[in-house]
């Protein structure tokens, strides 16, 4: 790049120093969680005195962690699937049809991103109470579909607008039916976008705490159990749970890097 000119060195060095420190500062807390999760005592001291897996086995003695984990996974998968379908059909209309108010509708569909989570939470609590539905499953599912929709819609609109309709037409000229033409050409081309938006949607749903806490009439999600545990007991069990989740995230990110590249996240 700039070899030989000798310029840009001080700048690069400074960004290495500052940026490097910041990234290390971001990385250390996660490392501390890992180390503390192996602490034999029930205090949260770094460095720990010894090594033990008791907090990992303690996860299994807390039925609430396991059941809420199970619930969060199912909720995330179902919400993601619905959000993908709604997002894909919406993105198809928004990219391929010109109609009045299209900009307004796509703006409104993105609006859950700018409305504070507490406001959305109170809104869903009020709405479902008014309808006399006091069950977590339908209300949380509706909530998670709506808050994940902006992510699926945005990625899929971006993907579809780069995807020429002519391919689909060519397939139809060659005798494919409407749906087969769509599946074989367009859907195949936007597959990376589908994967990326599915991951975004799942993570958003799985992590959601602030709005979901208003809807835990009969079921709690994992973040809510974790928060309650931190504020009540606060022994290293949460560090063990966190370590497991961080490892799962690392796995997901590596898979994502392989499948679709991390540019889908970083832009």
């Amino acid at each position, binding site marked *: 790049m700039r070899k030989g*000119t000798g310029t840009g060195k001080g700048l*690069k060095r400074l960004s290495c120093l*500052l940026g490097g420190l910041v*990234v290390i500062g971001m990385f250390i807390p996660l490392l501390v969680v890992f180390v503390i999760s192996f602490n034999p005592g029930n205090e949260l001291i770094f460095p720990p005195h010894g090594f033990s897996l008791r907090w990992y086995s303690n996860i299994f003695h807390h039925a609430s962690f396991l059941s809420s984990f199970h619930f969060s996974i199912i909720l995330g998968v179902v919400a993601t699937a619905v959000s993908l379908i709604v997002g894909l059909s919406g993105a198809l209309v928004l990219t391929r049809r010109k*109609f009045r108010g299209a900009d307004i509708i796509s703006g409104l569909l993105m609006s859950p991103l700018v409305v504070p989570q*507490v406001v959305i939470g109170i809104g869903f609590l009020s709405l479902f109470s008014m309808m006399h539905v006091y069950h977590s499953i339908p209300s949380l599912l509706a909530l998670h579909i709506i808050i994940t929709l902006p992510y699926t819609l945005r990625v899929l609109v971006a993907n579809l607008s780069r995807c020429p309709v002519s391919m689909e037409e060519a397939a139809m000229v060659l005798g494919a039916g409407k749906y087969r033409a769509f599946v074989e050409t367009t859907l195949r081309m936007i597959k990376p976008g589908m994967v990326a938006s599915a991951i975004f949607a799942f993570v958003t749903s799985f992590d959601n705490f602030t709005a979901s806490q208003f809807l835990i009439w009969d079921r709690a999600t994992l973040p809510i159990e974790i928060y309650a545990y931190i504020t009540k007991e606060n022994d290293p069990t949460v560090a063990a749970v966190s370590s497991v989740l961080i490892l799962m995230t690392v796995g997901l990110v590596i898979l994502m890097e392989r499948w679709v590249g991390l540019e889908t996240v970083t832009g």
Partner: protein
Amino acid sequence: MAEQTKTSVSLGLLLPGLFCLLLFGASLFAVGILSLRPERLAGEGIGLNQYLRFFDDTRYLIYFWRSFKVSCYGTLLTLFLGYPVAYLMARSGGRIRLTLTLVLVVQFFTSYIIRAYALMLVLGNNGLINRLLLKLGMIERPLALMHNETGVAIGLIMVSLPFIVFPVYSVLRGIDLRLEEAAESLGAGEWQVFWNVTLPLSLPGMAAGVVLALLFQVTSFIVPGLLGGGYYDMVANFICDQALSVLNIPFASAVAMVMLAITLFLVIGLNKLFERNLKDVSA
């Protein structure tokens, strides 16, 4: 034309999206309606009592003041810390860039709760920093890095770094390096090049990141909840407390409406401001 109708999609496909929109709109409408209830428990009538109560008592304004203050300087610090990371990522070779990206994306995808919890283990009285400083003899008593404004600010900055780094990185990577080389060949020093070429060209990324980070920080619940530990509640914590502990839904709804108005005002205002000024830069 006949060919075009074959591939054109039916407007009916928008229906599921519109249904979601309807549900979302109805939920916001419900907050608005509830905020007009004069009584705490579902009573009759309509009035502005809840809003009057809120604006009458300066005690309540402190939550808004905290949210506003911390997120203003928090966002600036996040920008200041995030920019070098983005610059480093954009100007490094493959392996370093991949490592940095991996660390940031893992951060980004890890739950807010876990990241806030991890910071508790670093900042607490028995946390990494205090243990280290005590061992080195640099302090005699643990520093109060948590359960106060400092802890909340550190938490908000650390958690919202990816919001700044990603957009700035994306813009920096798109800058044509020949522009910098041209400035250099005309005799500009490296700092002059950065100040007059690179930084102005990266303004759109900074603007996008600032809006995201500010939005996150102003509305944050988990970070002030865990790192403030109840000693530094911000707006979102106050609203939750009113709705879920005090069980005063009408009052919580009124405060939520005020929060919504302020948030929308901030986001739209900032977008307008950046739009206008960034046009000046490119013109």
